[in-house]
């Protein structure tokens, strides 16, 4: 597929580019970036004036629910949602049925996404067999099968010795460990953040220290074992302080946050809104401020959605019974663009956290528009206004706390390997 994307504001932090330029795509690869480029033979031309042209966005934390839980989402619907949200690559967590703890499941996901998907799918294998926290999974084979990291997301590794060995073993295999940092004994039966709102609503609280302690443990283990570690969906001031301090000492730790942690507080739970129920839970204003501060100072490397589709039957129930998680792929970009408006991040910094950094953390050859790179490109219309509505979401599940709300900005075109997979 040949394309010429003309007159957009091309932002590629991997090359330090931020200028009004053309991007030429030939045979699915970026051919060149420059001014007044000639269209490659037979190229379709996209007029990107007023739009941003950036490396295809990378979401390093999604749940595609396939195999096994296709009633919530599958690889086709999930990658369609990714494309609609401007993402060309997603890394999917292993809590499928069966768990991604073997080559067969990883290969199935890769094969299905290549055949039928609208985005690149990079599976994340499990740390332990069945993610049950008992025995290390075959990380070597998982890596060879195409897994880009290992994680027991949603089911934190409780045993500290096992986590230590996981970090060491994974280092040997050259695969990254992603930690879902929550101390389950402190989480207990909590269903929302512990604070004034939980007091008023009479809901059992999850204290922020549950995340802080688990983050501290895993960061210390990473330091002790000299192993790289990535902390998923950071939501508390305390864990950010620990990560910032560790980075300062040279510990190989990276982390991500999700748009809901810088956009919402636990006030969103009022009315017992199950679409505001997730793990870790929405925190308080002080934590939201800390997340923004950490995005700004670089403590947070990446923005990931933790896209967690759930069927209406799992959300349209009493609060305690509702499943944890929200869909995020289609709202991440406008919510993140707000950070630029609020001057938390510059536009290149935002693109770095949504494309370049997640790609480099996972070690995938994406997140760049260098000549010769695979032409995964997102054209962003920063001005488009739209309303989040269940019937407009490509995801099978509609569990978004933003239903009915106005968004500004979104993908105009999502281009995967030179092919337009989404057009607004």
């Amino acid at each position, binding site marked *: 597929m040949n394309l010429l994307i003309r007159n957009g504001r091309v932002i590629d932090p991997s090359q330090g580019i931020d200028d009004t330029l053309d991007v030429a795509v030939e045979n699915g690869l970026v051919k060149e970036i420059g001014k007044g480029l000639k269209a490659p033979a037979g190229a379709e031309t996209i007029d990107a004036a007023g739009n941003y042209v950036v490396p295809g966005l990378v979401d390093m934390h999604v749940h595609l629910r396939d195999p096994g839980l296709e009633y919530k989402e599958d690889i086709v619907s999930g990658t369609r949602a990714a494309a609609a949200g401007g993402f060309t690559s997603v890394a999917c967590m292993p809590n499928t049925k069966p768990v991604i703890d073997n080559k067969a499941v990883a290969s199935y996901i890769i094969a299905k996404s290549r055949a039928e998907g609208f985005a690149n799918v990079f599976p994340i294998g499990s740390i332990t067999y069945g993610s049950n926290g008992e025995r290390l999974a075959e990380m070597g084979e998982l890596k060879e099968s195409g897994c880009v990291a290992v994680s027991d997301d949603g089911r934190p590794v409780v045993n500290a010795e096992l986590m230590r060995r996981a970090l060491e073993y994974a280092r040997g295999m050259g695969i990254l460990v992603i930690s879902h940092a929550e101390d389950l004994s402190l989480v207990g039966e909590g269903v929302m953040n512990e*604070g*004034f709102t939980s007091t*008023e*609503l009479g809901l059992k*609280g999850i204290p922020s220290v549950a995340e802080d302690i688990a983050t501290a443990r895993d960061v210390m283990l990473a330091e002790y074992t000299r192993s790289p570690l990535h902390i998923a969906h950071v939501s508390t001031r305390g864990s950010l302080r620990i990560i910032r301090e560790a980075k300062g000492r040279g510990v190989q730790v990276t982390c991500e946050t999700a748009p809901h942690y810088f956009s919402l507080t636990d006030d969103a739970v009022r009315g017992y809104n199950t679409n505001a129920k997730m793990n870790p839970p929405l925190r308080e204003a002080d934590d939201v401020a800390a997340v923004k501060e950490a995005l700004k100072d670089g403590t947070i490397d990446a923005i990931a959605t933790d896209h967690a589709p759930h069927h209406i*039957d799992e959300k349209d*129930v*009493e*609060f305690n*019974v509702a499943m944890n998680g929200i869909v995020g792929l289609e709202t991440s970009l406008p919510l993140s663009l707000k950070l630029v408006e609020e001057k938390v991040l510059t536009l290149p910094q935002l693109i770095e956290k949504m494309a370049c950094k997640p790609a480099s953390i996972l070690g995938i050859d994406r997140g760049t528009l260098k000549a010769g790179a695979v032409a995964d490109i997102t054209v962003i219309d920063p001005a488009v206004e739209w309303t989040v509505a269940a019937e407009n979401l490509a995801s099978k599940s509609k569990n978004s706390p933003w239903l009915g709300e106005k968004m500004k900005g979104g993908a105009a075109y999502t281009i995967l390997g030179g092919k337009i997979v989404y057009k607004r």
Partner: protein
Amino acid sequence: MGFKHKDIIALRDLTKEDMELLLSTAESMREINSRDIKKVPTLRGKTIINLFYEASTRTRTSFEIAAKRLSADTVNISPSTSSATKGETLADTALNLLSMKPDIIVMRHAVSGAHYFLTQKVSCSVINAGDGAHEHPSQGLLDMLTIKDKYGRLDGLKVAIVGDITHSRVARSDIQGLTKMGSHVFLAGPPTMVPPAVERLGNVTACATMKEAIQDADVVIMLRIQQERQGKTLMPNAREYSRYFGLNPENLKLAKPDAIVMHPGPINRGVEMSSYVVDGPRSHVLKQVENGVAVRMAMLYHVCGGELE
């Protein structure tokens, strides 16, 4: 000025005027309860379903008697005899019940906020008979009525609430109601049982000791301590709890000389309250139960759109 709410789920949702109206209606309902023939035709032809997902003796009986005194037809459903044990969802149960055209569903449920969920599904009135650790508005109102009987007002009173505040829906309704009516609420309990930021709920002071809370109090409300919490992480055992957070004739002397003592029941005698206090002259526990019927009559009456003659 009528009552504008279709449902009564939480005293947090009601204004001072709403609560004053309910209390004054309850006062007139009390007259019916003292008659020889304790029945008026006010809610004749109305159907009330008592849907109790948690065990309850006094609250369910009280709601049922309240309904019957107003001539409504009542049906009691509890999980052991319902479809809940067959795995039917609350929404499906509610929709099925709604098809039988009830006017009011009175529900008790273990999940905080379950009633807000219910009101999204049904068009009839919903009254909360207790939801998780959230609220128990009829208890809050009957507590207020009992205090008002004694002092003729709620404004400017010092009310101590002692016990497991975190897990208590009674405490939340009492706090919401009493502080809106002008009382100052003092809380005491082991810090493991006092929720964060509780003082932000209103004119509330969280005290370090029970002594501080009950000192010069006009009212002392003791909460039931869940025996199953013994030996877990919130407290060592009932013995130690009783020693520091139990009400006995000795520490009751700290309260005002004519202070009244209340308890939502059922009481663990010798744990949160000594029998000398329960059965003593200050105890208003049985008055609370008596007022419970009148308050619930008032609630049923007003959600049905009643106007006082």
